[in-house]
């Protein structure tokens, strides 16, 4: 008996924004696709509270689960939530139909947030502190970026996705690794004047090397993942990691073309998308691989069985 992912909700939130939107800042569709692999992304409307969209993703997991009182914890991951106090997790818990007794808290580890929250949630289950846990990533990166910045405006996107964690006899214990290097904090950071500073080539270089190393380590452990899902940072990063991890012979999911970079939400959104179109089977072993601001990195190998 071990904890794993037993349900997922990865809705298409917000409105689609295609590359033509960025012609006003001198970016062509061809240039954006070449630099990022992105054709479209979704942005939430300014009037949509992030807590509401996050609750919309969590609510189906709670209702499908049957007894909400057995969901003992909710972790809401967000890099882009604008209001720090109060936290978003309590609002999401209440709106999603979770009991008042739920342990609900916010987490921010930039693009690594989902992997870190997954590690935390699985640990709560495996330790017997929670019967089941919802992990929700909710991002409105469009509210963080400077929409006139040619380097970042077309990359970042909004999205929300949630998974339900619980224990099953057929699951093998999850394994994880994590790390960070605070000396690299300026590689990616929010600027004082608004917007995101991104040292593109250096981030690309470090992300590829780190994500490849994490994937290789996850695949060296038994049981090895049946599918790898990396943080959907940039299509060029994903394709380079895919090429370098090809000898592992594990499918590597790249869904950035229609998602953009949704920070912490990118892994569950890409995984949900691949499950929805049956690119990956409903049961298997997920290797989630992330790299992001901090700099922070991490990976989780976790069993899943949906439905």
């Amino acid at each position, binding site marked *: 008996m071990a904890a794993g992912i037993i349900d997922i909700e990865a809705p298409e939130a917000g409105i689609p924004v295609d590359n033509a939107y960025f012609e006003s800042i001198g970016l062509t569709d061809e240039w954006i696709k070449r630099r990022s692999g992105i054709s479209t992304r979704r942005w939430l409307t300014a009037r949509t509270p992030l807590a509401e969209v996050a609750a919309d993703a969590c609510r189906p997991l709670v209702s499908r689960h049957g007894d909400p009182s057995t969901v003992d914890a909710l972790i809401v991951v967000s890099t882009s939530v604008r209001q720090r106090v109060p936290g978003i997790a309590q609002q999401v818990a209440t709106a999603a139909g979770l009991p008042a007794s739920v342990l609900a808290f916010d987490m921010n580890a930039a693009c690594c947030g989902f992997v870190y929250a997954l590690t935390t949630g699985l640990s709560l289950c495996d330790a017997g502190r929670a019967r089941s846990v919802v992990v929700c990533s909710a991002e409105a990166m469009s509210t963080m970026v400077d929409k006139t910045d040619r380097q970042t405006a077309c990359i970042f996107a909004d999205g929300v996705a949630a998974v339900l964690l619980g224990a099953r006899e057929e699951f093998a214990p999850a394994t994880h690794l994590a790390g960070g290097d605070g000396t690299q904090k300026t590689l990616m950071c929010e600027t004082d004047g608004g917007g995101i500073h991104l040292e593109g*080539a250096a981030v*690309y*270089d470090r992300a*590829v090397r780190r994500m490849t190393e994490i994937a290789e380590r996850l695949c060296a452990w038994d049981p090895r993942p049946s599918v790898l899902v990396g943080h959907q940072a940039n299509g*060029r990063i994903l394709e380079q990691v895919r090429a370098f991890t090809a000898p592992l012979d594990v499918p590597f999911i790249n869904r950035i073309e229609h998602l953009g970079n949704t920070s912490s939400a990118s892994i569950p959104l890409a995984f949900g998308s691949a499950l929805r179109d049956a690119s990956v089977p409903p049961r298997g072993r997920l290797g989630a691989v992330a790299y992001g601001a901090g700099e922070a990195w991490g990976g989780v190998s976790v069993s899943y069985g949906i439905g």
Partner: protein
Amino acid sequence: MSDIERRVSDIMLAKLRVREPSLKDTDFDKSIYDLELDSLDVVELTQILERELKVQADRRQIGSFMLLEEFRSYFVLLATR
């Protein structure tokens, strides 16, 4: 041309011909900025050479290179150390 020079050239051409299909190793005296390369292509080229040759490049040194020949010479040197 030595075997290792040939190998480094072949790795570079395989990568760079994705952007410049007609590129030859006699074009290695060209500046990387005269080719249809972007900054990520240069990083990709570096990573592919590192992986294929099982060497570790110095990023600061790579950042100072202007010519493809400088890449070739540097990686030949690394691979023969």
